[in-house]
């Protein structure tokens, strides 16, 4: 008789339940249950289009800014598809990139120290890791401090983080002074120094030259290197593998490329994205079903019928980054590689933010008023954004001055959604074969679980 365990998983964004089927002490099947539902897509229906800018960020407290950008882009596309020119200044474009990148940096720092590291306290002897102890540990506290510091930049441009709605079709609402911009540069420098000293244990220029695991751990004694050594000790460099197929739906300026990589890299095509509701309480026609086999509020999403992993590792692979191509070749899409990709992004994004800040010309307009009120338009628009956890897709249709339909596919739906008839979701697949519940939880956390986004 197979044995079944069901655990409420904490230390993720929101709560998720993991149901595991065991046979001879090995996990034979895994069900990721997202049990909570707020109904954002329903609530948005019938609202004035611009109100989406206020409502969608509130889907998620840690990546709400990405939702703001997705709503902005989706609404902007309605202008374009209706044949109207919509101008955005380079300044507004830069500022949007800056604030989105800062949210991702914040996310990755918090996640690595608050969600990932504490697992090793349960695996390893606690004394050597006491700096990582939640609430009390020095390193835990430092991570909270620096992740809070970087979002001050969002506050400079958007007034606050979380939950500003300072971006709208036509640009941004702020008009920063040069002094504000350079104080943001100062903040980046401080966080970058922290990244160098604590996380990678070397300077960023040297780090960006690294192309292999061995080279890195020979040169570094930072928290990332400690993490890598611990992962190897517990064999986590070779487990937690999913499908080794990667999706990124949008370019992140010139930093990361969109694309689809299974064996070869191809271009992403939105038309090939399909939602599947076989195991979801929420059906595609927006009705509910509590049929016995259903187990999650999240729908599944497939590209050409196949599950794909999204997120930082997908971005690195689709951008053909040498270090991650090498790691992937050797270790595939393992726990270690997936997490390293997230931590790696912190450095790249910090450098990117600094460059963008320097490029802002304050003489340019922040906002160029669209030629028409969006309420006078009709049509459909997509907003594609690479958020902290990967590919975020908003689709909005507007009719008679109101939102007619709003559909959201979050990164967590790609990674942690339920199965379809043929395939498990990437995270479900990655857990199978594990022999301990703790490592199953760790692997699930390596996807940076956000249950509030998974179901919204």
């Amino acid at each position: 008789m197979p044995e079944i365990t069901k655990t409420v998983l904490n230390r993720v964004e929101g709560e998720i339940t993991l149901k595991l089927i065991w046979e001879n002490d090995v996990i034979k099947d895994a069900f990721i249950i997202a049990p909570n539902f707020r109904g954002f897509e329903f609530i948005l229906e019938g609202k004035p289009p611009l109100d989406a800018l206020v409502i969608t960020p509130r889907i998620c407290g840690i990546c709400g800014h990405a939702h703001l950008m997705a709503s902005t882009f989706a609404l902007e596309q309605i202008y374009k598809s209706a044949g109207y020119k919509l101008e955005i200044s380079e300044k507004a474009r830069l500022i949007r990139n800056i604030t989105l990148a800062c949210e991702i940096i914040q996310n990755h720092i918090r996640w690595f120290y608050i969600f990932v590291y504490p697992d090793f306290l349960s695996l390893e002897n606690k004394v050597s890791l006491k700096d990582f102890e939640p609430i009390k540990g020095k390193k835990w506290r430092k991570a909270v401090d620096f992740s809070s510091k970087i979002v001050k930049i969002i506050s400079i441009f958007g007034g606050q983080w979380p939950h500003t709605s300072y971006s709208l079709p036509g640009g941004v609402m702020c008009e920063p002074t040069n002094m504000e911009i350079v104080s943001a540069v100062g903040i980046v420098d401080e966080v970058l120094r922290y990244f160098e000293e604590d996380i990678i244990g070397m300077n960023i220029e040297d780090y960006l030259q690294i192309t292999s695991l061995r080279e890195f751990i020979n040169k570094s004694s930072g928290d990332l290197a400690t993490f890598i050594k611990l992962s190897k000790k517990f064999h986590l460099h070779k487990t937690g593998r999913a499908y080794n197929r990667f999706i990124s739906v949008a370019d992140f300026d010139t930093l990361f490329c969109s694309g689809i990589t299974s064996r070869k890299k191809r271009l992403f095509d939105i038309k090939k994205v399909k939602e599947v509701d076989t195991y979801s309480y929420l059906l595609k026609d927006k009705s509910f079903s509590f049929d016995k086999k259903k187990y999650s509020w999240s729908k599944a999403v497939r590209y050409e019928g196949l599950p794909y992993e999204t997120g930082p590792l997908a971005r690195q692979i689709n951008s053909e980054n040498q270090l991650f191509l090498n790691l992937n070749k050797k270790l595939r899409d393992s726990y270690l590689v997936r997490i390293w990709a997230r931590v790696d992004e912190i450095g790249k994004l910090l450098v990117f933010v600094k460059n963008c800040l320097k490029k802002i010309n304050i003489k340019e307009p922040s906002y160029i008023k669209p030629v028409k009120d969006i309420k006078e338009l009709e049509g459909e628009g997509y907003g594609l954004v690479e958020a902290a956890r990967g590919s975020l897709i908003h689709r909005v249709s507007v009719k008679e001055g109101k939102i007619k339909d709003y559909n959201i596919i979050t990164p967590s739906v790609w990674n942690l959604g339920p199965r379809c008839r043929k395939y498990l979701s990437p995270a479900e697949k990655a857990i199978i074969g594990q022999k301990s519940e703790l490592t199953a939880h760790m692997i699930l956390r390596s996807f940076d679980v956000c249950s509030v986004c998974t179901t919204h």
Partner: protein
Amino acid sequence: MYTLLWLQGLTCNGNTQSLLNAENPSFYTLFDKINLLYHPSISYDVDLFEIINQIKNDKLPLTFLVVEGSITSDKRFFSIGDYSIAQIIDALKEKADYIIAVGNCACFGNIPANFDKNSDVKGLQFRFKEKKGFLPSNFKSKKGYPVINISGCPIHPQWFVSTILNLLYKKPVYLDGFNRPKELYMYLTHDGCTRNEYFEWKVELEEFGHKEGCLFYNQGCRGPLTHSPCNKVLWNNTSSKTRAGMPCIGCTEFDFPLRENFFETKKNMGIPEEVPIGVSKRVYITITGVAKTLKNERVNKRLEETE
């Protein structure tokens, strides 16, 4: 021993994320004085249900029961393990010295209470304006307070930290009509906004994206109609939405998600339909007329060009 237990209902976790941003003092320094029993995003080796049982059986004292998120008793839409959030709060409500609702969802129901397919979504003691929340209107926790509402979508971290410290140091917390700490919510969002000069002289912001001009007249700013110290205790110790150029959307008030067209000012013959708290429409029109006929050269120039 002081203890704190943090529960989440239907939420985006934004209040937790906001709290992590706290400075002077930081969120975590609270726990030099208080034992954090459980927080879903932070704890790593405790079992929530074991903690709940110990509290229920008086084996563990509960000083602060903190709830983030709206409450529903419908397990199809929200559950933690086999329980609804309503069942868990029910089990603990008599045990806590203080119950604190953080964020508009826990206070008033907020956005999730607008989902019409689940009509059983509420705040802890309010549902929007009415005292028809999950707990009865006359409910008081062990220390004699109703649920203390720290409203906002999300809350500013300092509002929470100050409230907890105030209670720890045994200072009374005065509450307003919505059971919010008066010393925080007696201010209007408008108080301290860098655009006050333009408000006084009725100089409107024509279009988004400028430092100059007040957002009250065209962009829907709720600053003079909203209770919060957003421009007194700055966000991320840095700025505020209205300072940056985004209108206040009134997110500390019960009716936040009931309103629409956040970026427009509803007007009647050129006059905002809703006038600042404390003034009658007549007074407002008079003062606007006066301000507009008198000239202030400074407010009509770009800030860089002023003397």
